[in-house]
């Protein structure tokens, strides 16, 4: 049978429970702010190790974390350094500000045996106008381990230090590799330029009339009979190169049959061979200049160059067309 004291105790606990419930109901809206600690493994740390604690801070709507209340990087205790404290603001939820606080510590505790250590709590202050809210990142306990055995065993000298870092010379290999790369790029570019501009042995690769037009323009820059004969000869060499053999006036029809894209210039080509005959086998260069002016000669060379380019472009374009229709 329950005694009187028992009933008194029951009544008192009931009363306490009701009061506590009421207190929770009243306090709940004001205590929505939370600090949640995400910590790494709490064991297996040696001296010099870095420990990064992450705290998620959620505030009540309207409150804002005081930036001045953040801890500055400093030695926290004689064995613990705070390396950095980074605060990132996360997107707010229903007007409540959220933050992520990263606290990076470095421990310099040299335990003789595995031992628990405390990273102290970090106080934070949030403010909404005059209202001040004091929060704190909770303290965190971890186990620090010794690096060496307590009692020296065997013949090894316990005071033997790890060796120095020897000074090393500048590493040159990376730079030498860069030199090789730059040289390769430079040489490739020079090769490309040589092909494009027809330098040295690549001059032969250039279409003959295109090269001749360029040369003739240069030769005719000095207007003289001698230059004119030179220009004539240059165009003759271009015809020879295009035909693949020495080309005379009589061979022109046969040559044109092989190169139909040049056929449009047939008349003026005949004119050129005529002028050339006058210059070299007739009255001389001066008379030939009357027959065909230097300007006309240059324009012939240029038109041949254009025709030749079009002729070269056509065989390249043709197969793609055929593929398209097939």
């Amino acid at each position, binding site marked *: 049978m329950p005694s009187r004291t028992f009933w008194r105790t029951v009544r008192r606990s009931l009363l306490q429970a009701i009061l506590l419930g009421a207190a929770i109901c009243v306090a709940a809206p004001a205590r929505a702010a939370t600090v949640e600690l995400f910590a790494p493994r709490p064991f297996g740390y040696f001296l010099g190790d870095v420990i990064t604690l992450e705290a998620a801070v959620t505030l009540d709507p309207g409150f804002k974390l005081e930036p001045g209340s953040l801890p500055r990087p400093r030695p926290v205790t004689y064995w613990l350094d705070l390396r950095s404290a980074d605060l990132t603001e996360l997107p707010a939820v229903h007007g409540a500000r959220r933050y992520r606080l990263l606290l990076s510590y470095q421990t310099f505790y040299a335990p003789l045996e595995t031992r628990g250590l405390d990273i102290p709590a970090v106080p934070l202050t949030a403010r909404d106008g005059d209202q001040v809210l004091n929060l704190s990142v909770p303290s965190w306990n971890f186990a620090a381990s010794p690096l060496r055995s307590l009692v020296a065993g065997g013949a090894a000298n316990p005071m033997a230090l790890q060796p120095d*870092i020897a000074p090393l*010379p500048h590493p040159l290999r990376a730079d030498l590799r860069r030199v090789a790369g730059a040289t390769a790029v430079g040489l490739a*570019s020079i090769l490309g330029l040589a092909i494009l501009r027809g330098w040295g042995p690549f001059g032969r690769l*250039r279409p003959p009339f295109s090269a001749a037009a360029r040369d003739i323009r240069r030769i005719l820059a000095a207007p003289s009979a001698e230059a004119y004969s030179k220009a004539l000869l240059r165009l003759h060499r271009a015809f020879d190169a295009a035909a693949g053999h020495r080309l005379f006036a009589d061979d022109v029809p046969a040559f044109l049959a092989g190169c139909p894209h040049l056929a449009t210039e047939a008349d003026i080509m005949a004119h050129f061979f005529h002028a050339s005959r006058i210059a070299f086998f007739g009255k001389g260069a001066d008379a030939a200049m009357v027959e065909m002016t230097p300007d006309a000669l240059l324009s012939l060379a240029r038109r041949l160059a254009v025709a030749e380019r079009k002729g070269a*472009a056509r065989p390249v374009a043709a197969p793609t067309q055929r593929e398209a229709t097939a």
Partner: protein
Amino acid sequence: MKWVARAWSTKWPIRRLADLTLATLVVAALGVLAALGARIGWHAMENRTIAALAEGRDVPVPETAAPRLLLARAHFLMVRDRLDEAQPFVDRLARADQTELAVAALYDLANARLARAISHLEQTQIDPAIPLVRLAKAGYRAALVRDPGFWDAKYNLDIAMRLIRDFPQIEQEEHDDAQETPKRLWTDLPGLPRGLP
């Protein structure tokens, strides 16, 4: 060489553009080569000095020299027990932005100090050993702050820590001071009314 003919048949502005690009590339490659050549030459010269120091020749090095050269000189001095002469080089390296070399300098100097302290202790000379161990610990710690994953420094710091352990009390006071300083700054501000009539 059909592609060459094709290159010739492209239109004038494209060819001009290709020409310009290639010319620019040639000039750029030449510039890079000149810069690299200068740097390689400079480094090779410094490497000769570093090699001479490593061989044990007492080559002077100005304090404004390249960090690598400073480290070589500082190491030369440390190995020969001229720690006070090595200190300015190490200080300079610690301020330089090349972490790797700064760590090496701090660690090597701490090693030299700890080794000397241990040799003092072996002859039971306690008093000269104490400041050396303290400085060595500070050196290892500075190296570990710069490179937390440096195991050799951890190991040697552990040796130093067992010779002289850190004392919580002394450091605790310093810590308290640091926290109170801002408050004192404010109360010391001039111009605050002090209740005079």
